[in-house]
């Protein structure tokens, strides 16, 4: 589903590469934690999957497509198959829960009837039954993140990327968020989650890819967060 083949990324105006010779293969339906300290290249890894950045060297395949051969006007179609969740939720403050989720479908031109059918389903799936008409500022952080997950998942993407989705949420609520991501993963969606949250990684025992200074230093199925950052 996601293949990194000896990928190096050097940002202009920076001598140190953000990623260096990265080889990672994530298969369909996998759940992968991406761990490592700040600046280790986690975000760059996720941005490369979305083709928000191009690798300096190496090849990337996502959902069967060679990104280096994907023309710019086809990038939106790639992104429709990838859902994204961020630490800061990125909800539209002037739209309610239903509208925020529906927005993702409206802007890719889905018909109204389809939207009316699938949006409530997804809102239920993430555990926000009965809250469709709340505004984002009436929701807790955990609930806002559920809205963001609903929006990312409403178009049934093949891949869900989560960049520190529990970074702004207390540990008890984080477990709830993780359960939602796990539920999504069980529908067959590949999930890649960058995180600093050792407790969660340790509790879930999924595959762990650890980055350090842009290199993969560990790739372990059913791994833990790691001793060096255990206390973070």
């Amino acid at each position, binding site marked *: 589903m996601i293949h990194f083949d000896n990928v190096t990324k050097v940002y202009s105006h920076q001598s140190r590469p953000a990623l260096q010779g990265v080889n990672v293969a994530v298969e369909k339906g996998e759940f992968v934690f991406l761990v490592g300290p700040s600046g280790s290249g986690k975000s760059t890894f996720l941005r490369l999957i979305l083709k928000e950045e191009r690798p300096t060297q190496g090849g990337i395949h996502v959902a069967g497509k060679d990104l280096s051969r994907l023309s710019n*006007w086809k990038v939106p179609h790639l992104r429709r198959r990838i859902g*994204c969740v961020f630490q800061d939720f*990125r909800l539209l403050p002037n739209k309610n829960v239903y509208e925020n989720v529906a927005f993702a479908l409206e802007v*890719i*031109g889905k018909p*109204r009837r389809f939207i009316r059918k699938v949006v409530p389903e997804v809102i239920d799936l993430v555990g926000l039954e009965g809250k469709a008409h709340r505004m984002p500022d009436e929701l807790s952080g955990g609930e806002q993140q559920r809205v963001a997950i609903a*929006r990312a998942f409403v178009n049934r993407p093949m891949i869900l990327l989560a960049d520190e989705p529990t970074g702004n949420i207390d540990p008890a609520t984080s477990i709830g968020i993780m359960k939602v991501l796990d539920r999504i993963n069980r529908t067959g969606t590949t999930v890649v989650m960058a995180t600093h949250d050792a407790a969660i990684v340790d509790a879930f025992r999924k595959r762990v890819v650890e980055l350090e200074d842009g290199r993969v230093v560990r790739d372990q199925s059913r791994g833990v967060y790691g001793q060096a950052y255990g206390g973070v």
Partner: protein
Amino acid sequence: MRVQFVLQEIWIGLRRNLTMTIALIVTVAIAMALFGTGVLLKMQVDKSNNYWSDKVEVSIYLCNKLSANPNCKKTEPNQSEKDAIRKQLESMPQVAKVVPETAQEAYQRAKEQFKDSPGIAGSIQPGDIPDSFRVKLKDPKNFAAVVAQMSNREGVDQVVNERAILDKFFKILSGLQWAALIIAAIQLIAAVLLVANTIRLSAFNRRRETGIMRLVGASNVYIQLPFVLEGAIAGLVGGVFAAILLSFSKVFLLGRLQKNLQLATPLGWLDVTTVIVASMCFGILLCALASFLTLRRYLKI
């Protein structure tokens, strides 16, 4: 493509920076109105020029008892002298045709011409306008030789070159035309810069929305269209105001010119409508294009 969604986005964009939108509309309206006026004046000048260049003549007024010219010595040339002048004119290579007009004919014509102004018509006496020859030139531009040979000839009072009078008039008109076009060009530059600024603000105001649109895979057209249409709509509204201003300039500027200066070739409403439609299309396209180019810089795709 969901039309309602796009329209809603445009409405939000226009409303959120209303002051910029108003400034933009006013600038576009003035720019297009001036541009249109310039074009209308040019059309008027060209049309009149064509019309008149067939008709301009050099008039050679002969001496009579009232002539102020000292060469005339207050005496009218006799018939053989008049015939000699006519012969000399007809022998010139530049001359196409010579038509004599007697003082009596000139008197009748003047009466006719000023029949709407009884004061002037009443004060004209037979003989105020002397006998004359109206000389039609093969090429109206080659008047110099005729004027030079006739000016100091015995028996000739005055040589009046209508072309020179018309040229003076057309010079004023084309001066107006260029002034309008130059101001229009400056206004157009201002309009383009304002469009760029308005769209930049709009893109900044809606960066959350466009960010999410990009993320969930909205196509570039879908993301950019509301902004481009926003510019185009401002251009259209400005164009409507410009159309009103142009109608005014047709009625008041050209209308007065025609009335006061007896231009025989008025521009019709068809011409004005053509200019209005053309300048509107031009304005809308310009605004849309400026929006589009601005987006390429400020809206990451």
